[in-house]
């Protein structure tokens, strides 16, 4: 399954909505098209909403990994410049 290589990682567990999405969006902006970002987020509102917001920005979501400790890693491929 893991046919991707992570380019960069961002931790959004230290902020709350809506800064969670903003922080992920800023991290994506610094990448090139096709790069892979791993977004480290908390259970609850972040994991309910951030994937949808990233999708609506037009990026491609590849995987949501459950770390088993109340956090998740969302694997996103950047689409667009």
């Amino acid at each position, binding site marked *: 399954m893991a046919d991707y290589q992570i380019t960069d990682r961002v931790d959004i567990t230290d902020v709350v909505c809506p800064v969670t999405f903003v922080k992920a969006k800023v991290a994506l902006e610094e990448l090139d098209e096709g790069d892979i970002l791993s977004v480290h987020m908390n259970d609850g509102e972040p994991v*309910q909403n951030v994937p949808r917001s990233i999708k609506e920005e037009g990026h491609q979501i590849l995987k949501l990994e459950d770390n088993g400790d109340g956090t998740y890693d969302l694997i996103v491929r950047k689409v667009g410049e």
Partner: protein
Amino acid sequence: MAVDYSALKAGGFMRQKQKDNFSLRLRTVGGTVTAEQLRTVQAVADEFGEGYIHLTSRQGIEIPFIKLADIEVVKKRLAEGGVETGVCGPRVRTVTACQGGRCCPSGCIDALDLAEKLDARYFGRELNHKFKFGVTGCQNNCLKAEENDFGVKGGVQVAWKEDACIACGVCVKACRREAITLTDGRITVDEQKCNNCGRCNRSCPTDAWDVTPGYLVSFGGTFGNSLKFGEELLPFITDEDTLLRVADATIDFFAENGLPSERFFKTLERVGIDKFKVVVTKAYNGED
């Protein structure tokens, strides 16, 4: 000549505590007013009122301090500018709605379009007591469907598309009802838990859901002297014709069974909600 306050009230002229002054209620649907209508309202409020309007709790506009002597000319002026007067009293009131799918990313149905249809069909219909329709586009329920006599809430029925799914697990977490499970790459939805909000579909990176938009209807809500949440009595409705049949049956039931000054929920309590449920279920099924 004696003033027929009842007739004036029926036509939207609400008697104020100040003698011979009326707060004039205008006809609106879903809180939508055109810029042209606003200019007309502005001119009338300036010339015949006191230069302000009141936004009502149900998305309407009232122009306070209209004088008894000016009623006819005010009506004429408003009509020329494309503005109709509203209603009060024992009849179908303003149909409220959120912007729904026309503008809102969360909207599952075009709530405004439906509100316009309900307004065209029922607005001002005489009944034993007031009757309120409200339409909200999704489970976020900005328009508070259950506080209406007939509340409509947009939703979607979802069916998993295995071919398109990458088993990423986003929908499992996006669901606020814990209705979705992912086991060995397969998604299952617990229909008992699903509330048709559609968050799974909106969050899905590969659009791996077939979605059917539709309506959840609640009956007999009120938020006035008594507080009562409208009750959902029917399954998810997936077409407008069925919804309108159900609305027709509801209004007819109230017209036939309601007593003067009795709100719909009181009628349901007195006559029996089970009896009503039989009636709307027949309408839902398209039976006579």
